[in-house]
């Protein structure tokens, strides 16, 4: 009696489980992407809206890190990838048929800090390079006081927070620091996971954000969206022209506008020269194969065009920077040529 009841229960459960997820999509084209976590929120918004508008196309994106994304791409287990650090030439050569990189959006990396009494911290180039090299160790260091006359800087050690895991954000930040400081380039270098001379490590943008929120006297580098959503104080940084620029959409756009886009569409804005440019800005790329079968190619073309046109309007509310028109035009030409 009990056995019979159990088997009936089990059968019902299995039936329920297999029926509950029935969607009525016809022969749908599925596109799978993987890669950087930096643009993940924006891509997921795009892909969800695109899939909702086109009932026979399903696009999925999972953030696993730029490195793993590129690896999956090279192993051909995904249809497209995304990376903050573009793709190395030797990796591009390994993919048969060739690859096409398309910068899809951009974002700024900000230095957020936890000093309740100092709402507007200004850091000169020597200041923030010195902090991350471990040369400036206290908040009331004369160099910082010079840049912030009148601010109530406490006599506390600076608690530097860096990334524990490998990350495209770190890559871009170290690229900028190496571009403005030969000492940094020599001692630490440009890497997704460099050997930081100073700092406690936290995992992920969210880890650094959490540490910043709970550790007094701390400073760390995170993407703009995270600092904005948690209302962290963001430091105003000195750029190449000597102006102190806050991280806004306009200052980031000014930085991107100075980028020369070569034919392979990989450009770095490690130290923009424009007077109102925010110094730490980066593009982020979508990586596609040069050859697809027709269905996937059409779907991808539609997807990319959506991202370059309507999608750009959604960048700003999420904390990203809309692409300059020049770049959009070059992207469109490249995707049409596939």
């Amino acid at each position, binding site marked *: 009696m009990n056995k019979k009841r159990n088997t009936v229960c089990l059968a019902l459960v299995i039936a329920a489980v297999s029926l509950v997820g029935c969607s009525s999509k016809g022969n749908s084209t599925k596109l799978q992407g993987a890669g950087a976590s930096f643009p993940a929120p924006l891509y997921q918004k795009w892909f969800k809206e695109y899939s909702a508008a086109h009932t026979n196309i399903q696009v999925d994106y999972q953030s696993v890190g730029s490195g793993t994304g590129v690896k999956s791409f090279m192993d051909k287990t995904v249809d497209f990838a995304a990376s903050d650090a573009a793709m190395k030439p030797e990796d591009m050569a390994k993919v048969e048929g060739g690859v096409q990189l398309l910068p899809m959006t951009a974002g700024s990396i900000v230095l957020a800090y936890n000093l309740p009494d100092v709402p507007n911290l200004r850091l000169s180039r020597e200041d923030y390079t010195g902090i991350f090299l471990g040369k400036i160790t206290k908040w009331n260091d004369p160099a910082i006081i010079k840049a912030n006359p009148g601010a109530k800087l406490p006599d506390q050690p600076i*608690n530097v927070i860096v990334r524990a895991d*490998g990350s495209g954000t770190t890559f871009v930040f170290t690229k900028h620091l190496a571009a403005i400081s030969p000492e940094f380039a020599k001692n630490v270098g440009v890497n*997704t996971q460099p050997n930081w001379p100073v700092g406690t*490590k*936290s995992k992920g943008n969210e880890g650094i954000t959490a540490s910043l929120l709970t550790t007094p006297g701390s400073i760390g580098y995170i993407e703009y969206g995270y600092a904005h959503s948690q209302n962290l104080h963001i430091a105003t940084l000195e750029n190449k022209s000597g102006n102190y620029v806050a991280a806004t959409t306009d200052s980031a756009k000014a930085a991107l506008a100075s980028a020369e886009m070569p034919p392979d569409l990989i450009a770095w804005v490690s130290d923009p020269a424009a007077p109102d440019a925010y110094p730490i800005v980066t593009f982020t790329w979508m990586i596609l194969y040069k050859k697809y079968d027709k269905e996937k190619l059409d779907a991808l073309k539609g997807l990319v065009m959506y991202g370059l046109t309507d999608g750009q309007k959604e960048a700003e509310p999420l904390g990203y920077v809309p692409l300059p028109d020049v770049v959009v035009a070059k992207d469109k030409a490249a995707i049409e040529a596939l």
Partner: protein
Amino acid sequence: MASVPEKIRVREEVAAWHPGQIWKPPSDVQRWIDLIFRRLCVAFAAITIVLIVFLVLEIGVKAVPAFRDHGLAFLYGTTWDPNTHRYGILPEIWGTLYTSLLALFFGSAFGIAAAIFLSEGYLGETVFKILKVFNLHFHPFWGHLPERLEALLKNLIELLAAVPSVVYGLWGLFVVIPLIRPGCNWLHAQFGRFPLFSTDLSGPGILPAVFVLSIMILPTITAISRDALVSVPPKLRMAAYGLGATRWETILGVLLPTASRGIFGGVVLAFGRALGETMALAMLVGNANRLTVSLFSPANTLAALLANSFPEAGAKEIPVLMYAALVLLAITFVVNIFGAIVLERAAGKAEAR
């Protein structure tokens, strides 16, 4: 109308086909099934060995370039610098052993205590005594309360195992670290010369990691130890009481030694889990490559190193990470050999008693 001997013969033939009949000598079919089943068991057991050999080979093959480049210096180097390609995992080896052993110590202490609490039925006894005061102990509903509460408690402790490691990491970051920071900084200020407290708690560190890790391994130890304690034959317990032993004299002198094999099995599983715990430690241990005894300083473990470096690792870094993974497996290997030797000696003494 069949004769009686014939009916018996037919019945016997029918019975021979029924696999459940154990009160007759086995028929041919049953012998055949027995053989197949035995062979199947051996085959399945062999699969485990095949699996681990396969795993070690896959990882080993990928680690060969790193072995050629770095050799044994990898094991005692202390810098991890992907830029200059200098890699050393001594701080990670130390961190893995330090955090796992500390977590094992605390996890076992509390885990076995909880197992004893569950197996002795303290909760049930107390509730029963309360029910007796109200004369409800034979009530159709309330009378079952003691055993239902005991089952609830057992399930609650096993529920600790169900919490995902990511959630433990987040809990540690948002709740544990701010909570213990004042106390740890006070200890550092007062007893800073004592090596265990020689740094201050600036965020993630060994102590939060050990705390969360011991909570993660506690349900394993409790569940398995409780099963071991409960399966001690009631005769032994009654015999000890009959001789006049108090409750704890029975527990310490009779129950724990008898159940020691099962308890040790649980401890081995828990230790393995502690060594290989990835996500929670990646968030809580601070990922600093330094060799330190201080409880408040950040450190690094092999599994956390793998978790943090793997997603972004380029083609040159992966062999190095695989080498580190092999080292972790080797540590588990060595620790288990050590544990087996300890178990042999302890089992010998316990059985002699």
